[in-house]
């Protein structure tokens, strides 16, 4: 009798285990990100966390590959007028929002009209200053007119989420403030618990089910600030993926066979900007180049920055303007040549100071290493950590010798870096190069991506040759810890995170 019981129990155990294997893992997936969202209005939040949430719930007209290329999404196709001012989008048919309404050209018109009517919305003020008007051509065609031709327009379209007009007409802003979000994305919004998570469920009527019909029925984006807590949660199976794991915390994972650590080369660069005004020592190109050539970037990247990469100029391997064949003397570690350049310059041993904030990874060690390198060839360089707000004020006044901050090319497009940081000189470097500025403006206003790519290559070459107004130091590598079998959790080269196509593939 006892043997029979044991046999029955063993069989039951085997069967239950077999059924568990056949069923696969739980139908809920949880992904951790450190940053909380602060709004549900897709037009009033542009943080990485907000983008993560919006891309789950809403669609955009076009999709970016985050390296400067765009593919259809809600818009099946588009064309640009000859004067490069009007974009005509042809909207996909058969798209429905989670409230059942059809998403068509009227919703696109509503979305852009809301931006025109509310210029203080963050998306309006940060991306759509160039928007002139939007008009309905027919139910599936819409014209978006710009005030001036604008190269990065497609990047802006790829970040503007389409809000269903009928749902908004019914609820107004309560749609966001009372958590009643309606969208046409692959996932349906369920709830946001501030500081804890956003919960989604699979959108059963998603228009692109043919290419994406996830295994998971439910998804969570969890906000955990403390890395050790996030890693513990993953190790104990409470969450399935942790985006942007700090390098120094990777050891906590050990050799866990269930978790895969992915190293992702992002386009985030640490760069050093010089004060180039006439009375500054860095007004002299030889001083700037000597400073740059005295730094052994490869050693810093390996020893200090978690095996990061070394970029050449402001174009990285995940951005426009990148030329794999391009090399630059400015970026070649050559202390002897640096000494010669310094000797040929007007530099007389004046003290120069590098500023950075703690927001920069390993900023203190990085600055000390740089000071060591450059002092060895004759500079008198000091470093100082300052408050973020203090650096903001000093930069606004141009009251610095040098500072180190992080920069990125959104959408893999150099317009942001070149326009704001070089031609508009928003950080008051006082570096002026008319020819360079003209090329930057041309790249900004051209809609021919190939032409822009060429222009960015030449701009990058000039920035390297002149070592002005900045030299880049390190291209950071980020880490993602993802449970084996979980796919579709991505970090792109421009720092954008995405889990809108999360799935399970054993």
């Amino acid at each position, binding site marked *: 009798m006892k043997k029979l019981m044991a046999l029955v129990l063993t069989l039951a155990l085997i069967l239950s285990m077999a059924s568990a294997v056949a069923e696969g893992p739980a139908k809920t997936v949880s992904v951790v990100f450190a940053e909380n969202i602060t709004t549900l209005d897709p037009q009033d939040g542009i943080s990485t966390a907000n983008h993560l949430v919006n891309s789950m719930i809403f669609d955009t007209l076009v999709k970016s590959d985050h390296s400067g290329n765009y593919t259809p999404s809600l818009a099946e196709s588009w064309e640009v007028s000859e004067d490069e001012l009007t974009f005509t989008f042809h909207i996909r048919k058969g798209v429905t929002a989670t409230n059942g309404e059809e998403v068509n050209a009227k919703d696109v018109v509503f979305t852009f009209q809301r931006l025109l009517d509310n210029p203080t919305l963050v998306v309006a003020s940060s991306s759509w200053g160039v928007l002139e008007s939007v008009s309905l051509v027919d139910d599936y065609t819409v014209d978006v007119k710009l005030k001036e031709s604008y190269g990065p327009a497609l990047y802006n379209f790829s970040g503007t989420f389409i809000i269903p007009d009928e749902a908004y007409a019914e609820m107004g802003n309560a749609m966001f403030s009372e958590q009643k979000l309606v969208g046409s994305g692959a996932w349906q919004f369920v709830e946001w618990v501030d500081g804890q998570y956003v919960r989604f469920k699979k959108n059963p009527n998603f228009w692109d089910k043919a290419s994406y019909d996830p295994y998971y029925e439910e998804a969570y984006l969890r906000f955990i600030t403390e890395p*050790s807590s996030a890693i513990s949660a993953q190790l104990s199976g409470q969450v399935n993926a942790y985006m942007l794991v700090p390098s120094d915390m990777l050891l906590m994972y050990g050799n866990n066979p269930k978790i895969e650590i992915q190293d992702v080369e992002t386009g985030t660069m640490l760069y050093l900007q010089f004060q180039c005004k006439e009375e500054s020592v860095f007004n002299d190109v030889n001083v700037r180049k000597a400073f740059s050539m005295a730094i052994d970037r490869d050693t810093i990247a390996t020893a200090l920055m978690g095996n990061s990469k070394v970029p050449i100029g402001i174009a990285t391997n995940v951005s426009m303007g990148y030329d794999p064949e391009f090399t630059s003397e400015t970026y070649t570690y050559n202390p002897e040549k640096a000494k010669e350049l310094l000797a040929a310059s007007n530099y007389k041993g004046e003290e120069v100071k590098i500023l950075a904030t703690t927001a920069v990874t390993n900023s203190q060690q990085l600055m000390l290493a740089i000071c060591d390198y450059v002092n060895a060839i004759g500079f008198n360089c000091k470093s100082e950590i300052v408050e973020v707000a203090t650096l903001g004020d000093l930069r606004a006044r141009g009251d610095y010798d040098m500072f180190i901050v992080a920069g990125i090319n959104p959408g893999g497009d150099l317009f942001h870096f070149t326009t704001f940081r070089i031609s508009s000189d928003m950080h008051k470097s006082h570096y002026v190069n008319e020819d360079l500025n003209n090329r930057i403006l041309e790249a900004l206003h051209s809609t021919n991506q190939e032409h822009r790519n060429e222009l960015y290559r030449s701009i990058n070459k000039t920035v390297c040759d002149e070592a002005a107004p900045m030299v880049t130091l390190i291209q950071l590598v980020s880490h993602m810890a993802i449970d084996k079998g979980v796919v579709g959790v991505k970090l792109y080269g421009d720092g954008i995170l995405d889990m809108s196509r999360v799935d399970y593939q054993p």
Partner: protein
Amino acid sequence: MFLKYVLKRLGQTVVVLVLVSILAFSLVHLAPGSPARMMLPDTATEEQVKAKEAELGLDKPLPVQYLNYIKGVFTGNLGTSSIYNSSVAKIIFSRLPNTLYLTFATIFVSLLIAIPIGIVAGIRQGSMVDFLAMFFALIGQSMSTVWLGILLILIFTVKLNLLPSLGMQGFTSLILPALTLGYPLASTVTRLGRSGMIDVLREDYITATLAKGIPPRMVYTKYAFKNALIPIVTTVGVQFGVFLGGAVVVETIFAWTGIGQLANMAVGNRDYQLVQSLLLVIAAGVAIINLVVDIINAKIDPRITLM
């Protein structure tokens, strides 16, 4: 006499709150850098920074800004959070219940553990029980809450898979943060309970009561413990105020969405309006709790009102 004492303490509390409001306002406004610049993207122009300053009223003289702020406090308007773009009062009061929940749980756990241990250790001074109790207290007082929190997560979540380490999903989510916060408090209360009992048990009236043949258990609980209670009430009250102010580290480690986690986020994002109001609300909480503690102590020992 009692009413006079309460009114005097109330007056002191009001003065403290006024001073705190000035201090919070000054700290935030004297911090380096422009709050408006911090709220805007780093691509913002000087004109946009100036416009933002005007919108926030930061272009007005400091005394005017302070008076406007205080006017807002009395009308329930604590301003708008720059990161949430929403009412500061609404944000703070949506999180306050979570902090209160954790605070009450922590104090309940601490007292449940510490009072019996403290009493027994005090009664059996020098015994093995006393030694173990003091060992328990010493470790609790020496240990960092960060370390303890992570240790508990590693044991109960990662190794044993018994308890969740994050979020607020029912009673089980409360256990680890309450233990992390509660252990140091339990240690303090154990020591105070023990020393209080030792002192009281040496009093003549206790000897006399025991000599009268009253059962020791009744003497300890009814006569001795009541007088050993005052320092415990004071300490628990002070700690209550501290927890109310947000156990920043513990709330951050366990992803507990309370005032502490909010303060951490507000400081990290330079949300000046939120930081300023959090300081004020926390200080008000501490001041009110201290007032209540003083009143309770005066009830337990009326001699306090004479001081």
